[in-house]
């Protein structure tokens, strides 16, 4: 099995929140969405995805409910909460700051 591209540490929560900000999704959907949007660069490992989702649930940033999919299967859909939206804002700002900082360092070098 080929080694997949690892996510930048600490970015998984933000990616999930951002993905859910567009529309409620189930776990598989989130993984798929991130993969597609990143054009296969970012692969969310299931081993990290589900613990992360539980973490977000506990924090109250997302909520979950069981719904029917288009193919009529039961799936657990995650929706961003108001708290989660605020958190996403915070994380994006922080991320921008980091990226800018890293960018500056790389430019100078």
């Amino acid at each position, binding site marked *: 099995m080929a080694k997949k591209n690892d996510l930048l540490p600490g970015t998984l929560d933000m990616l999930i929140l951002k993905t859910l900000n567009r529309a409620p999704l189930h776990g598989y959907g989130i993984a798929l969405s991130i993969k597609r949007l990143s054009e296969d660069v970012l692969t969310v*490992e299931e081993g990290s995805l*589900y*613990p992360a989702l*539980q973490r977000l649930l*506990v924090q*109250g940033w997302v909520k979950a409910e069981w719904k029917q999919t288009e193919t009529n*299967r039961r*799936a657990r859909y995650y929706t961003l909460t108001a708290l989660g939206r605020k958190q996403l804002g915070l994380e994006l700002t922080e991320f921008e700051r980091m990226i800018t900082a890293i960018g500056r360092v790389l430019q100078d070098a």
Partner: protein
Amino acid sequence: MSGMIGFFRRLGMLVRRGRFRSELEEEMAFHRAEAEKELIAEGMTPKAARIAARRQFGNPLRLKESSSEVIGFRFEAILQDLRFALRQLRKSPGFAATAALVLALGIGASVAIFGFVDAALIKPLPYSDPTRLVGVYEYTPVCPQCNLSYEDYLDWKKQNHVFQSLEAWGMNGYLLPTPAGAEPVPGVRVSDGFFRTLGVTPLLGRDFYAGESSPGAPRTVLLSYATWQQRFGGQPNVVGQSVTLSSLPYTIIGVLPREFHFAPRGRAEFWTTLHDPNGCEKKRGCHNLFGVARLKDGVSVATALAAAKAIAQQLELQYPDSNRGQGASVLPLSEAIVGNIRPILQVLLGGATLLLLIACVNVSSLVLVRAENRKREIALRSALGASRPRLMGQFATEGVVLVAAGTAIGLVAAATGMQALTHLLSKAALESMPYLQGLKLNLHCIAFAGILALLAAILFSIAPILRLPLTALGEGMAEGGRGSAGRTWRNLGANLVIAELATAVVLLASAGLLAKSFYRLLHVDVNFNPDHLAMVTVEAPDETYGKPALSLSLDREVVARLSQLPGVVSVGLSTDPPLTCNCDTTWFRVLGKPWNGEHYDAPQRDVTPGYFKTLQAGLVRGRSYTETDDLAKPPYVMINQTLARQFFRGEDPIGRKIGDLSLSPESLRQIVGVVDDIREGALDSDIRPAIYYPMYQGPDDGFTVVVRTAQAPESILPALTAAIHQIDRGIGTSNETTMAAQVDSSPTAAIHRSAAYLVGGFAVLALLLGVVGLYGVIAYSVSQRTREIGVRMALGAQRGSVYGLILREAGWLTGIGIALGLVCSLGAATLMRKLLFGTAAWDVGTLAGVAGVLAVAAMLASFIPARRAAGVDPAEALRAE
């Protein structure tokens, strides 16, 4: 804020744990199904797609685990580990029981001994700020902590600038009238500030006021708590009541607190003031008091000692007759009180620690072997998704469970052990150590056990974790992975077993030396025949018998009456029986010998004519006293052989005269006989010059009766007391005992006995654990080497050489262990030389015996696995692996 929300959410999930699991399960199944569908859509066969999806999904168990961790509490994992650990231990009950019991043994022994150490050395004396209290004594080379004389005490009190207060106390006894006749009870006379200096306030009533010690003041008494309870029914209205002590009325002014004790006079019932100076206290040269002082703030013991020495020096110049050669001694009161049992407690604590060490090493070996044998299981677990921290947690939990069980059993054992040990001490020994009374498992002990448990838990958790094959999963799973790891373990185990054997040698050697000391002590030459001697102490009231003529008739009457009792062979009276103390001394000088002001000091006893015959002490020269050596004759004296040897080297002492330091004519006495060196002091103290006056020339109304009996001496004791009470019910009798029992219960014997017994017990356990440890290592080694042995035998090795192979391995370990242990033993024995009596630290016999015992035991233990090795069937061994 969000932390709080998180907490409550987790709490909610805890309640709906089942639902959480099934939801996660379903979610994951859905995920896999979707992934599978997509793979099929990409053109895979359904079967390949399923496998790929699974592989992509990763380890579902670990995923579930980490999801649970996110929503779960830490304690849930711990509980789970705990359940698992219990299940594991239940699966190998032999291992669990052995480990827990061995640990309990070590912890139990250590905690029990610590209880004594705590009570005697750590827990402060029951006085306020006890570290500022000192004992104050006069000093001479033969008597380093000697009594103060009353007048010296008054001068010291006046002249010193180092003590906040200096008080004096003296031993005393009273005759207390009881329905059963007069009973002698121990008491203490104190100067009035005694309790204020100690910082003790009476539980009931008041303390002595300043000036209450002076002769004119009314006679008052403080009761000890036990006396108040036992003799006065614990009634609060006891204060103000009157009590008659030795025919004098005293007013009870208070009761001392329950926790108060004063070890130098452990059993004291009545505390009175010094009041009237007694005969001795009127003479500066007569020493009968002890000093207790509280240091001024900022004054150290050394400063106080220097100051006391300066005063003593000045008194030497001022009163050369009485004070020449009288120095000073000041030492912490705790040192004065518990100094004598510190060495034995230190040795016992050392012994218990070594035992605990062996126990820990033993259990570590067990835990390590177990970890070794579980390698494959651990590898399998990590393959199935157990994370490293989780595995470590499980080992740690197992260690903690073992230690907890061991500690619990150990605490029970310690509580029982402490009870048993206090019973091992005689009543007399316990009375002189009141701080040991009521000793039981207290918070200090439990805290100590907690510390030991914590250390053990850390050890037993870390040991297997260090050996966990976590890095190379594949190796653990592979069949061949065992050999190399087994060898590492063998080296480690071998080192551990050497440490165990060496420790066992140290304990065995110490026990051997202590046992030999105890034997030597009990068989020390006492220079009289201690069998078949019964004794009783007699105190007659001074009011009735104080006059010399009346005392004399009492003395003769007692001898006459007791001699007629059936079974009595002979009767003798003495002011102090043998084997008690080198106390009650007198200063003497030999007429016609040069004298430079030295204080020759010798125990002095008044004895009746039958005394030496009763003791069966040999007469060396001259004659013994006769019935006619009374006041009508010139004053006579008998001396012991040591005095004769020291002062009359090569001369005949018979007919020579000795007297007091100024050789005053009325003090001169003619030597009529030299008696053998009857051991007057404790078994382990030196024989000193001794002086015996004829009792009929200076009659006493207080003495000890010594009776030689034909039958068992215990049986005659009631008859002795009854016969004395027939003379007068007002005569007090006490200490009815036999010479054998007195020796047996003496503090010296008690200390040596408990040292020998306890360290002996530790040593036996250590030997057992050490040998079991050796057996374990050798047996493990044999089981690991089965194939090798099979190959050797297939190639023609004889059974004898296989035996040799295994026994050589064991022999090496034992040899190194013994050698190391013997070296350490020398060190240990030097450290405890204070407890050795007539036995050198390098006693070759003991050390050789110990080495022999251990060698034989070790060979026996390794013989069993060696036989198993020799019984290996080569064909089977080769096929097995």
